[in-house]
């Protein structure tokens, strides 16, 4: 069996003697006999490193790693530069705790400060926190931020990622806010419907840009409508798209949130990912979670600290509006290194290439009978019908050929995605496979 205990049996005896104890069991004398476990745990015996690695490898081998991925829907395969992997595996970053001790944590604190700055650049917003669990919980936390005494209602676009909608609903069922969906019309949020839904107790509106179907929303108009009755607009953003499209700040959003996974994190079967949150100055004190600020030390040198902590659970306890304690610091670091490696031009190139490949994929699919469902400008995702053979059969055919096709939506629809890592050759191959099956 494996073990990470370093003291030898002889040392353990010596330690017991020093304490004045005959056996280790004596130290557990407070555990009453009627709750103590009298049998060994019913789990397998331990393994050597070789055995455990083989075991895990075997399990990993039961999964299919697709060479070509044409599926997104909230998780995107982008290229991860070598420098990103090299930096984030540095053990000081990996094995450090939360930087509460500023004197010995300047490296972690500065990396978060740099991350916050980059998120502000990307979103155009004034302030960013040190990150939260993921895009869905970021959206839910943002909704909770907007709650005021007389405003406890949230409107969420039906064109949002379903996981985001469900997470918002869960958080709201806890804190007592009510959630209503703004209906979809032709693949985008129905803003006329939003107008008719407006009410005095509306706290906020959540709209994704681009939305779940990859389509660009009219965020500026949504902002005007939302602000007309004093509610807040939350924009759910794709961080890659942000490098080329109008920022949520320019569009009038009060809070920008999103899933940061595309910024250098592997698909990882859904996690760990990164929830980013940024807001206007006016909302700063309502931002949940950790925030790093710049200050000086007693000798006047520049220094970084966790700040505005009085908002947080460890001080405010039951009066805190969020219980969040950790952030995804290591994922935030990953995102910061990714953005540094890409730079502004690289980020724009990733965005443009992803968008271009998706447009190419769509035109090729259309040419073999996969009809576009919504005829609207889109980023790197779009919806088609299932073509001649039907969506299910089409996706199965691709899967057999080592291609992860789009995601099957209801009613024989497919949500496709392409990123910069997909080559023209791969797209042509996928289309050829579909054409063959459709014959």
């Amino acid at each position: 069996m494996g073990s990470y205990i370093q003291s030898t049996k002889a040392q353990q005896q010596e330690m017991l003697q020093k304490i004045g104890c005959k056996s280790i069991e004596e130290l557990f004398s407070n555990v009453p006999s009627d709750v103590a476990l009298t049998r060994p745990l019913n789990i397998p015996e331990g393994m050597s490193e070789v055995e455990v690695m083989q075991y895990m490898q075997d399990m990993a081998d039961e999964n299919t790693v697709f060479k070509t991925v044409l599926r997104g829907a909230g998780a995107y395969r982008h290229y991860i530069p070598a420098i990103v992997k090299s930096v984030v595996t540095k053990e000081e970053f990996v094995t450090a705790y939360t930087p509460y001790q500023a004197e010995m944590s300047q490296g972690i604190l500065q990396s978060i400060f740099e991350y916050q700055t980059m998120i502000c650049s990307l979103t155009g917003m004034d302030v960013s926190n040190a990150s939260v669990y993921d895009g869905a919980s970021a959206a839910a936390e943002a909704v909770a931020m907007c709650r005021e005494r007389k405003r406890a209602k949230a409107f969420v676009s039906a064109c949002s990622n379903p996981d985001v909608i469900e997470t918002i609903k869960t958080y709201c069922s806890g804190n007592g806010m009510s959630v209503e969906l703004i209906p979809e019309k032709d693949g985008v949020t129905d803003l006329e419907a939003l107008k008719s839904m407006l009410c005095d107790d509306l706290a906020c509106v959540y709209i994704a840009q681009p939305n779940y179907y990859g389509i660009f929303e009219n965020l500026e108009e949504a902002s005007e409508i939302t602000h007309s009755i004093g509610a807040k607009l939350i924009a759910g953003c794709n961080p890659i798209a942000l490098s080329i499209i109008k920022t949520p700040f320019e569009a009038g959003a009060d809070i920008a949130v999103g899933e940061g996974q595309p910024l250098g994190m592997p698909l990882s079967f859904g996690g760990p990912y990164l929830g980013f949150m940024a807001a206007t100055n006016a909302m700063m004190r309502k931002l949940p979670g950790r925030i790093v600020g710049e200050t000086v030390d007693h000798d006047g040198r520049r220094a970084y600290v966790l700040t505005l902590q009085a908002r947080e659970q460890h001080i405010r306890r039951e009066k805190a509006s969020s219980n969040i304690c950790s952030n995804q610091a290591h994922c935030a670091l990953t995102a910061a290194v990714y953005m540094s490696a890409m730079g502004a031009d690289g980020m724009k190139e990733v965005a443009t290439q992803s968008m271009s490949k998706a447009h190419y994929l769509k035109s090729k699919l259309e040419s073999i009978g996969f009809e576009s469902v919504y005829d609207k400008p889109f980023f790197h995702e779009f919806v088609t019908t299932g073509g001649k053979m039907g969506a299910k059969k089409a996706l199965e055919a691709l899967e057999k050929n080592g291609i992860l096709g789009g995601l099957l939506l209801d009613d024989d629809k497919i949500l496709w995605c392409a990123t910069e890592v997909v080559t023209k050759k791969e797209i042509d191959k996928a289309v050829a496979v579909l054409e063959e099956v459709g014959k």
Partner: protein
Amino acid sequence: MNIPSELKFTRSHEWLKDLGNGTFEIGISDFAQHELGDLVFVNLPQEGDAITADEPFADVESVKAVSDIYSPVSATVTEINEEVLDAPESINSNAYEAWFVRVENVTETAELLSAEEYEAFLNEEA
């Protein structure tokens, strides 16, 4: 210890000042600001809010703590002091200038102490 004689005090260390015409100012005592340490933020109610005697109506933050501020009266808030919002350190530098809110329509009053009584209370507590 600075305890102005024209003010009334609570046992939870707030002060109440009569401005005449039924208007009152509320703040925290010099003793309170000293105990709380360097204040970094203040949460105030909004104009028009009703506040209740002996119940929290605001809170103040230091770096490592949050403390409720209790109202000496039941009344309606007519004005909040933007200055303490912008510069909470003004409470530390002059607790009796740095009022939190002005109120009207006082319908109920908590048990209030005169300056001498408050001083005696502080000595007792020490």
